[in-house]
């Protein structure tokens, strides 16, 4: 295989690097450090962080792309030939989910197709029946009799393995804590249980318990069934949902990442320099702000589309093209959402400018840029951080709405918006096909809820007063 680095992959890893750098920087900055400790002590915050970390792992696995090598055809095999299909580490892990497609809809854990079809007997006569699935529950000889027992067995096995893994995990945490604090394991355990630790380990472990109790059975069941059913063309819904996680994360994080430089630079410059610079920057963001968000996004997305179409030769594979569109969407969303943060930073910079040490630095003749970088920026970091975490959930929700309007991600991209839109029509079916919608709902709800809770914890820890001034970035995109 040959690794493929898509643009968003590169940016995601860049983001990871930035985050690590920021983490390292926080350790040595007493203010930030104490704020992070506050976050660590928040039970809701840590539970949310745990969930987000799991989502992030899924997203990161899905960002390690490669093109598989084709088996050599002629035998001479001088030159490796690679498939045009771009896969990710997640695809490799979930090969079973990806490849075991059915013909069309099947309900969660079903053994038969959802709709009746005309089936031909060996003698050529035909009758109507729910045909057996190609993969779901094929190992059963007599599904009606064995189905429930098989499900129960797999569920129990999964739950038990989940519980076992959780115990190991809990043991490791307790051991490390015990060693660090040099107290007995029992004492540590009781402390964790009572929430008597600096980091809310009880929340983390409880979240893991819940996660593992769900994931264990799912993994065991997914081996032989479609846990969340299949969609119209028979793709496993669980797979679709897992693949959608990356898109949501990309939209939620990269959008803010790409807009940050503008927002921060312009906001600080406007506040610090004032005068003409301030006028120009204010003019810029008022103008962009005054254009209805959806329309600006629609126009920009259509333009991107044209650009991608006219430069088709730049993109070797469909994955690259879809990726370009995803990235473009991030840029465009960023373009429309930087104004809020910019205004906020301008206001803060305006205040900071008057502070003694900044005045002193000016008096000493320190260069303007240096003052901004060394004295203003660090003191505005917490606002930036809060804006980033608070924007995340709004952006994930915005993606779904934009996809509805037809200006969202490429149809080749898995995303919650695509899922909801496809599922929307399924509700009108009789009987109702509910699983895609429910799957999208649950995944999205958990992700956004975790993001919101984490954002709250971060905000409370860094600057509780700022909430009243941050009104969210999504006002333009809201339906």
């Amino acid at each position, binding site marked *: 295989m040959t690794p493929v680095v898509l643009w968003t992959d590169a940016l995601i890893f860049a983001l990871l690097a930035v985050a690590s750098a920021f983490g390292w920087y926080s350790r040595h900055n007493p203010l930030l450090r104490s704020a992070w400790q506050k976050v660590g002590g928040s039970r809701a915050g840590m539970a949310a962080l745990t969930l987000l970390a799991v989502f992030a792992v899924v997203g990161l696995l899905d960002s390690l792309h490669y093109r598989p090598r084709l088996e050599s055809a002629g035998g001479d095999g001088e030159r490796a030939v690679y498939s045009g299909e771009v896969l990710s580490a997640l695809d490799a892990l979930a090969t079973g989910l990806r490849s075991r497609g059915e013909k069309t809809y099947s309900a969660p854990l079903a053994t038969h197709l959802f709709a009746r079809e005309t089936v031909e007997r060996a003698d050529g006569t035909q009758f109507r029946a729910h045909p057996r699935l190609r993969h779901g529950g094929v190992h059963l000889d007599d599904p009606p009799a064995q189905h429930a027992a098989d499900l129960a067995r797999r569920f129990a096995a999964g739950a038990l393995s989940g519980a076992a893994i959780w115990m190991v995990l809990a043991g490791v945490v307790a051991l490390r804590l015990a060693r660090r604090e040099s107290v007995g394991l029992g004492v540590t355990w009781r402390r964790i249980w009572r929430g008597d630790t600096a980091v809310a380990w009880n929340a983390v472990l409880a979240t893991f318990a819940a996660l593992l109790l769900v994931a264990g059975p799912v993994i065991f069941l997914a081996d032989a069934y479609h846990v969340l059913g299949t969609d119209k063309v028979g793709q496993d819904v669980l797979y679709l949902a897992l693949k959608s996680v990356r898109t949501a994360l990309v939209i939620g994080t990269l959008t803010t990442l790409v807009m940050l430089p503008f927002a921060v630079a312009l906001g600080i410059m406007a506040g610090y320099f004032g005068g003409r610079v301030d006028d120009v920057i204010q003019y810029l963001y008022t103008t962009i702000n005054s254009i209805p968000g959806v329309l600006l996004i629609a126009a920009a997305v259509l333009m991107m589309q044209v650009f991608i179409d006219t430069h088709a030769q730049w993109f070797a594979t469909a994955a690259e093209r879809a990726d370009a569109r995803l990235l473009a969407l991030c840029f465009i969303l960023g373009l429309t959402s930087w104004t809020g943060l910019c205004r906020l930073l301008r206001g803060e910079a305006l205040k900071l400018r008057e502070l003694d040490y900044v005045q002193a630095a000016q008096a000493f003749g320190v260069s303007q840029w240096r003052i901004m970088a060394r004295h203003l920026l660090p003191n505005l970091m917490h606002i930036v951080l809060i804006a980033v975490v608070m924007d995340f959930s709004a952006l994930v929700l915005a993606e779904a709405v934009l996809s509805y309007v037809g200006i969202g991600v490429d149809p080749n991209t898995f995303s919650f918006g695509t899922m909801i839109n496809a599922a929307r029509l399924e509700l009108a079916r009789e009987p109702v096909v509910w699983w895609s919608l429910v799957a999208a709902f649950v995944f999205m709800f958990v992700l956004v809820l975790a993001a919101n*809770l984490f954002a709250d914890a971060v905000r409370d820890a860094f600057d509780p007063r700022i909430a009243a001034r941050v009104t969210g970035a999504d006002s333009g995109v809201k339906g």
Partner: protein
Amino acid sequence: MIAYIVRRILHALPILIGVNLITFALFFVVNTPDDMARMQLGVKRVTPDAIAKWKADRGYDKPLLWNEQAQGSARLTDTIFFRKSVRLFVFDFGRADDGRDIAREITTRMGPSLAIALPTFLLGLYVTVSFALLLVLFRATYFDLWGVVLCVAMMSISSLFYIIGGQYLVSKVWNLVPISGYAEGPDALRFLILPVVISIVGGVGSSTRWYRTIFLEEIGKDYVRTARAKGLGETVVLFRHVLRNALIPILTGVVVVVPLLFMGSLITESFFGIPGLGSDTIDAINAQDFAVVRSMVFLGSVLYIVGLLLTDISYTLVDPRVRFE
């Protein structure tokens, strides 16, 4: 005051010019006039002649910015930019690419949009502010805690789910209101109840939380302590003092959107079959009818600027200390 308003309007001009330039650049890069013609003329039997004719009829056969062939000022005015974009400044929206009169369309569609947006806005404001006050009244109790949890949970649900779920349950399973449609006059109520309720429910989470933080911030201030020290009851303090003082931050966030209510809501309107401006905009985006989209962008910007102006004016009404400079 009038001088102030006039000055503000003059300030708005450069912004509108900027909006105009941005949209013009965006839309004419996206779609050449040829594309527009083909889009409108359909699939079957489209000849180059027909395209040329379509363009000529709608004035898309002119050069974009500078007309070499024309004389004098016509060099500037006889261009697509002048005819299609600059004319928006006098609210001359012209005709849509499919031939409709956009101004007429806007005036007829404004009513239904307002019919849904105004009750949503007012009732929503009423419900969320009351709920937030209630949470603050019972702050640091289980009610407050669970109320906030409920809010966070509600704002984590995509608006699409509220609409899809609400329509499915209320209209389909329970047969309580018509699924979609619109009627003029008092009959409209039956059609409006569901979309209004759903829109309010969809927005209640984030707004309540926002108001709650504002109230909490206000409640920690000195004057509240003074009021309490005077022996005023908690309810009186909350409703008389806190609410009034919290009006300024609330107004900042709220008044700006009032004029934009005219634009309607894109998704609610299409789902519920309400013939407002929002659903028209969606149609225009899908049909790539850029004449309409351009007009809506311009209208939206104008309304936004009006909203900013209204915000400033409303400050003076609630807070006499603020003066026009």
